[in-house]
């Protein structure tokens, strides 16, 4: 019998890693496309979602609710974190810097990242945080000679559902059309009577919520430490560049590509696991600066 273990591992790792990368980078790219801001603080938003979900799960468990309800707590925490971040940060800070030069916008979001990182340390403490109940409760599943924690299936189911919903919102609702119009031409959108200020707040909140949900879904599988999200944000940058700046569909396809490349290289040359992502990023900028989906540089 043919040994299918490496193939199963490759497929599972790719699928899991894709959904995590996509949840972070689709939101990041949406914000870049509509607000024209590369949000360096996007990774730390994910951390806020993760930390808040840990607190909410602990609250559910301590109020003697069954473990099954903690899955609801995870999603709820992700939503709350995203909405809070979106409705506070966009109107209070980002709105003041839309007319500034790029490097100022980048650094304002970098400053936000530093501030929120320390707020997390202030609220949850510098020590690492673990809540594994939702992870352990589901047990493991045997597929293709490997035992996989069932929690990952839950993560994928919810994660892909969220991405599908985002796709539907962007492509089949009036709000999505307004987003697209604003991204395409801000001035004409204003002339057509679109309240661009509101659009920016909503788009930013939706983008932030995707990443906080990603953080919340990942939290039971991680030991949370302050600063863990700084690795994810650069991965998201790489995905966004490869998928094309501001291109939401491209970000998803690039997530899939990056996840596959990483899952493959881990089996072959584990030392190059992280470097692969950045090497793909490098060659994309040089050869296809508009992203892999667009035509070759002329």
């Amino acid at each position, binding site marked *: 019998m043919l040994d299918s273990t490496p193939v199963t591992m490759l497929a599972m790792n790719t699928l899991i890693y894709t959904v995590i990368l996509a949840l972070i980078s689709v939101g990041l790219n949406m914000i870049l496309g509509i607000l024209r801001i590369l949000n360096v603080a996007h990774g730390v938003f994910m951390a806020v979602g993760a930390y808040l979900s840990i607190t909410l799960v602990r609250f559910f468990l301590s109020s003697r609710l069954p473990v099954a309800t903690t899955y609801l707590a995870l999603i709820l925490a992700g939503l709350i974190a995203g909405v809070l971040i979106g409705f506070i940060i966009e109107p209070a800070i980002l709105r*003041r810097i839309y007319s*500034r030069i*790029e490097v*100022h916008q980048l650094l304002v979001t970098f400053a*936000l990242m530093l501030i929120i990182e320390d707020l997390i340390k202030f609220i949850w403490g510098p020590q690492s945080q673990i809540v594994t109940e939702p992870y352990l409760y589901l047990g493991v599943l045997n597929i293709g000679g490997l035992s996989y924690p069932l929690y990952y299936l839950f993560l994928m189911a919810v994660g892909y559902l969220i991405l599908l919903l985002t796709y539907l919102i962007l492509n089949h609702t009036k709000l999505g059309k307004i987003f697209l119009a604003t991204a395409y031409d801000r001035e004409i959108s204003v002339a057509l009577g679109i309240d661009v200020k509101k659009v920016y707040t909503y788009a930013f909140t939706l983008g932030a919520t995707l990443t906080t949900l990603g953080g919340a879904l990942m939290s039971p599988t991680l030991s949370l430490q302050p600063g863990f999200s700084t690795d994810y944000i650069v991965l998201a940058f790489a995905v966004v560049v490869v998928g094309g700046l501001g291109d939401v569909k491209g970000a998803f396809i690039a997530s899939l590509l990056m996840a596959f490349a990483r899952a493959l290289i881990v089996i072959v040359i584990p030392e190059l696991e*992280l*470097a692969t992502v950045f090497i793909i990023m*490098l060659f994309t900028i*040089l050869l296809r600066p508009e992203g892999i989906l667009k035509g070759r540089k002329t």
Partner: protein
Amino acid sequence: MTATTTLLLKYFLSYACLLVVGFLTTRHIQFILALALIYSLVVIGLVILIGYAGLVSFGQGAFYAIGGYSVGLMIKYFGIQNAEILLILGILTSTVMSLVIGLACTRTRRIAFAMITLAFGMIIYTILLKFYRFTGGTDGLRIPLLKFGGVFPVRGYSLSLFNLTNEYFIIITVFIFILFLSERFIHSPISYTLRAIKDAEVKAVSLGISPAKAYLIAFIYAGFLAGLAGTLYAFLNAHIDPNMTYWTTSAEFVFITILGGGSGIPGAIFASILFLFLKTYLLAYTAYYWQFAIGIIFLLIILLAPSGLTGIIDKITRSLKKALTKS
């Protein structure tokens, strides 16, 4: 007095001032100041890249690490202990690497440039991190006490001039030389070319200017400065680690550049000194929350005074002058 003598006098006075500060302050203060001057070398490079060429590099940490690790690896694998040879090798390696990396990076502009420099920085970071047998991994490398000319240690008190330490003396000496070199660079034709391209690239090209060449020269100069800074950091700190090229370090350099206003050398030096003293003392008094304070200060500056410290100082001197002429 001719222009040259005034200029020389300026550097001589700056050097004398730095020396006097060294005579009178503790080793701790001299360490922070020396580190600030090392940072300001990187930041001066970024002022040229950002302020003059309009290119925002998020990978300056790469050259900082290349400078540092060329010292560490030369000691580890070739047993070189002469500080002067290591200094020259550090500068050479980082300059050659900035030529190679610059050839790729200067083909891009704006956000793509920021992202490609970020990618290079992160590639070097992951290599330093993952090939730990060669590079020491997260632990980094320890740098033994090196000597200049076999007699003058890079750290210690062999000068016996009040409190002046060797490390501070070496760094301010290199710093004054680089200050002179960088002011020459800023007043050279190449920097006017860069400004012309930044203002109107199409027009500059039609006048026969080659942007690629000008950008590459600016990139190499900035890479050389960051590499030199990394080499000096290895001497000063006696320890190097991969965080020198992590993206947050590179972002910190850009942060300081914009804090200083991003348009001139004095702002770069001033912002580096302020940043490192703030970081050191906030770290000492608040332990975990220095980033919070720095972030808030930066937000306030960028939202209220977009031209940074240079702008604030200009405003104060202008209003002082006004007040003086009135009275």
